[in-house]
């Protein structure tokens, strides 16, 4: 209770002094009653709900396995080719735009384009779960983290640090040579023939092998994430003012 002026303060004090003992007694009595009611309700709920849930479980546990049948026609190869070239084009365009943009915020936006296009590539590669994880973790998490980093570390978003022209030319020459050699090697290599008409990997398969064959990397990744969480909180925390 907040009152202004001396009279108000006195009144408040008197009121609290009068009300406090009776109020506490009343609340304890009332509390006992309420507690009794609560326990009664909880016991009744358990008595009613447990048989209900058990009946439901019996229904659910019944084997309802239906063999998977593909109803849709397989997609035409022309559509796949067109989609691949569209998505690959946007991926490459986004990556090159990240390279040649000077403004850091625009770089982050082009990185978003690239990440979403890469997720589309995963969909084309029939890796649905990886694509979803890419969209959630990369486009939803890492990119937001990067943008927060930009906001926290620049006085103005338009601050630029320019490399010299010679450096850019050297870097472009080296990277262009690298990509050219890689592309030459990749096109010259004869790969083993691929399976035609492959079903998408199910999440159940992924989870099963994460829990059996790859359980050690899975647990190590979990421990690493915890260490990183503690470390990042320690790195970015506010320093305490020394007295």
């Amino acid at each position, binding site marked *: 209770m907040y009152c202004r002026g001396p009279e108000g303060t006195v009144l408040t004090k008197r009121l609290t002094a009068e009300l406090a003992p009776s109020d506490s007694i009343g609340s304890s009595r009332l509390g006992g009653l309420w507690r009794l009611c609560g326990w009664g309700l909880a016991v009744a709920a358990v008595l009613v709900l447990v048989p209900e849930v058990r009946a439901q479980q019996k229904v659910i546990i019944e084997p309802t396995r239906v063999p998977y049948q593909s109803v849709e026609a397989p997609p035409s*190869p022309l559509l796949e080719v067109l989609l691949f070239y569209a998505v690959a084009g946007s991926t490459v365009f986004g990556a090159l735009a990240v390279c040649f943009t000077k403004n850091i915020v625009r770089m982050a936006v082009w990185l978003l384009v690239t990440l979403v296009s890469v997720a589309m590539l995963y969909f084309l590669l029939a890796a649905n779960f990886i694509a979803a994880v890419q969209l959630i973790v990369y486009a939803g998490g890492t990119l937001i983290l*990067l943008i927060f*980093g930009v906001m926290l570390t620049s006085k103005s978003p338009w601050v630029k640090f320019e490399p010299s022209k010679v450096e850019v030319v050297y870097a472009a020459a080296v990277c262009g040579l690298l990509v050219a050699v890689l592309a030459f090697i990749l096109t010259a290599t004869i790969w083993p023939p691929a399976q035609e008409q492959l079903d998408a990997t199910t999440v159940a398969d992924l989870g099963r092998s994460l829990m059996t064959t790859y359980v050690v990397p899975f647990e190590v990744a979990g421990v690493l994430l915890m260490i990183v969480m503690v470390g990042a909180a320690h790195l970015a925390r506010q320093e305490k003012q020394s007295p």
Partner: protein
Amino acid sequence: MMSIGLTEYLVVAAVLFGAGIFTMITKRNAIGILIGVELVLNSANVNLVAFDRYLERCRIDGQILALVVIVLAAAEAAIAVGICINLYKNLATVDVDTAAKLRG
């Protein structure tokens, strides 16, 4: 070319890799370098998932490895942004050329 095979995906990944390396070399902003690292990790992931799809031998393995790489990339980004914030606290800039205190 009327069918998409492994080679096309690998070439796209190679271009992503080159773009990431170029970004890492030419940017002076620490967060720009981080964006280049993300591009390189994504190109590795495209490679892994493409091998998973087209090679019989690495059926599930490629996707598991890609998941681990995504986890590592998220962890690395968190730590790197923390380091950038500390750099900014100490030097009032994230220009990597000014952070030369450890240079001999």
